């Protein structure tokens, strides 16, 4: 990173000091509030994406939020949190491009407050609660910098009723392989056919590298999740996804997969319009879309057969009680096509 902004109020926080030390060659710029930079008008997301800055901030207010109704992987109580905002990857379908004005990466350094809130939230429920990381960021991609995973998993040892999903496209799995697997944590990878990875998921590891990472995690005992979301429609999608599912299910021990989710391409209409303005040259965004309430998605006739096919292929490998669908009519932004 060329530039690191940091809130003056957390200048002496150990995590801030550590990150500034790690980024000692960057320009260090003190700011009052992260929103002064991150929410400023006149930013060009596409331009900034080429050279984003890092912003170190304190997360105030609500740090843990309930997921939209219908979202989950079998648990009764579901929440999400974002210790970072934005993603190092550049997936053309990602809602973050439509949601934020800035492409800079925000890291909230007060991990301890997140852990406290997670513990308090879980304690209020009788049954275990699921906490999803990776909505507003990739859970692992910046981990070599942030060290969040180690800090979270260390703390998890004292949180009986917490279940955690780390959602990612990243192969930065070293912190997970360095420690004993925790069966309360699901490491969930978003997967797409390689042709879609290379065309639309810019900067992400290839499908093969993701599958290799999944295999290593499985071998180490970590529960893994497969996230087939979003399914991207095209005229050769059936052939593409047929080959893709063969590859995924051949490589992995499907009996040991914790859960699989399936989701169609969907974006809030306002985000879709913003993305189209930003990327008028994007093939994915130029494809036929239809409005469904406040959401944009493929016309039913374009994706119905494809979704049915994907559903049946996944169901042949993963039992019904471990397969979950993300439905399109739940509110934005957390239900929309996510970054990881």
């Amino acid at each position, binding site marked *: 990173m060329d530039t690191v902004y940091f809130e003056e109020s957390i200048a002496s926080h150990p995590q801030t000091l550590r990150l500034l030390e790690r980024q000692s060659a960057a320009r260090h710029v003190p700011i009052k509030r992260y929103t002064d*930079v991150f929410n400023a*008008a006149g*930013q060009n997301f596409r*331009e*900034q994406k080429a050279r984003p800055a890092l912003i170190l901030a304190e997360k105030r207010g609500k740090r843990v939020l309930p997921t939209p109704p219908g979202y989950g992987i079998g648990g009764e109580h579901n929440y999400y949190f974002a210790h970072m905002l934005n993603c190092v990857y550049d997936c053309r379908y990602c809602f973050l491009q439509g949601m934020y004005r800035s492409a800079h990466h925000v890291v909230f350094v007060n991990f301890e407050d997140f852990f406290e809130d997670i513990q308090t939230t879980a304690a209020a429920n009788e049954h275990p609660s699921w906490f999803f990381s990776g909505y507003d960021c990739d859970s692992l991609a910046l981990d070599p910098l942030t060290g969040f995973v180690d800090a979270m998993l260390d703390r998890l040892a004292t949180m009986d009723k917490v279940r955690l999903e780390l959602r990612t496209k990243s192969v930065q799995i070293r912190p997970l392989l360095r420690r004993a697997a925790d069966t309360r944590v699901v490491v969930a990878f978003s997967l797409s056919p390689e042709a879609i990875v290379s*065309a639309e998921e810019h900067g992400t590891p290839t499908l093969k590298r993701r599958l290799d990472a999944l295999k290593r995690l499985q071998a180490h005992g970590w529960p893994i999740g497969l996230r087939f979301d979003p399914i991207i429609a095209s*005229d050769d999608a059936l052939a593409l996804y047929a080959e893709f599912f063969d590859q995924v299910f051949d490589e992995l021990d499907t009996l040991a997969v914790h859960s699989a989710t399936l989701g169609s391409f969907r974006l809030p209409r306002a985000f879709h319009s913003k993305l189209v303005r930003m990327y*008028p040259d994007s093939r994915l965004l*130029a494809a036929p879309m239809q409005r469904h309430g406040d959401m944009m998605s493929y016309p039913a006739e374009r994706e119905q057969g494809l979704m049915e096919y994907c559903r049946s292929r996944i169901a042949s490998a993963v039992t019904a009680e471990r397969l979950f669908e993300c439905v399109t009519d739940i509110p934005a932004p957390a239900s929309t096509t996510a970054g990881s």
Partner: protein
Amino acid sequence: MPPLPRMCIATALAQESRPIRRYLRLRRADHPSLPCPLYVSQDVVLLETGLGKLRAAAMLAASLCAYPSVRSVLNVGIAGGTGKQGSLWLGHAVLDQGSGRRWYPDLPAQRELPNTRHTLVETVDAPSTDYRPDRIYDMEAAGLCAAAIPVLGTGGICCLKVLSDGPEAPVELVRSNDVSALLEPHLPTINKLVSHLSQRSEPAHAHRTAVTSAAVAITDVVHHSESEKHYLHRLLARHLALAGTLPADTELVRYASADVIAAQLQQRVEAIAIHYKAS
């Protein structure tokens, strides 16, 4: 052909602009809507806005209208501060002392400005002798940010300042000849940054330009309302994104109305096959 500058350099004083316009070989020019000294080359326009943030904002706003091809603004000038006299500083943020408003321009890569220190630039309404160590003081940057950012975005402005006065060098003792001399050693750095900023282009510029040309070729022949033009643009953009080419306008203009053209074009766009495997 009149110049189509992509880059605007804004200085307040003639003493600030003189070494730059010599170094970049800019020639004096006139523009009917710009009542300030103006110098141009094919790629660069330089303004001497005069002193103060309001003059700076007004002149820059007028110049962005007069030269709509400009994509970046570089503010070069002198400033007061506690650092070494003659040192070069990049403004990492700009504060308008009067209103308290702050701007955070996107900063150029460090390789474009090696060994250049950075700090907050506080724009004051009158020269100040109350120097704080965490900032430098000028009289124009806030006005330039206020005018440039709504048009060019936070990536469209950069402020470079050379320290001319400070606790050890009182502002009253700075002579006009000193100003040019202070800037001289930094001209290669300024020139490097000008070259870099001149290359800034609108994302997907080629795509947008091709679509606009194709749309104009159609709307010149067949009447379109504003909303029909907007829809035509979108359909042409989708055609180009999906097929990699634009439809020949000669085919489309034979249709009698905007409605029919849109319907035809939509049909073609929807029929374009999307294959990922071969891409």
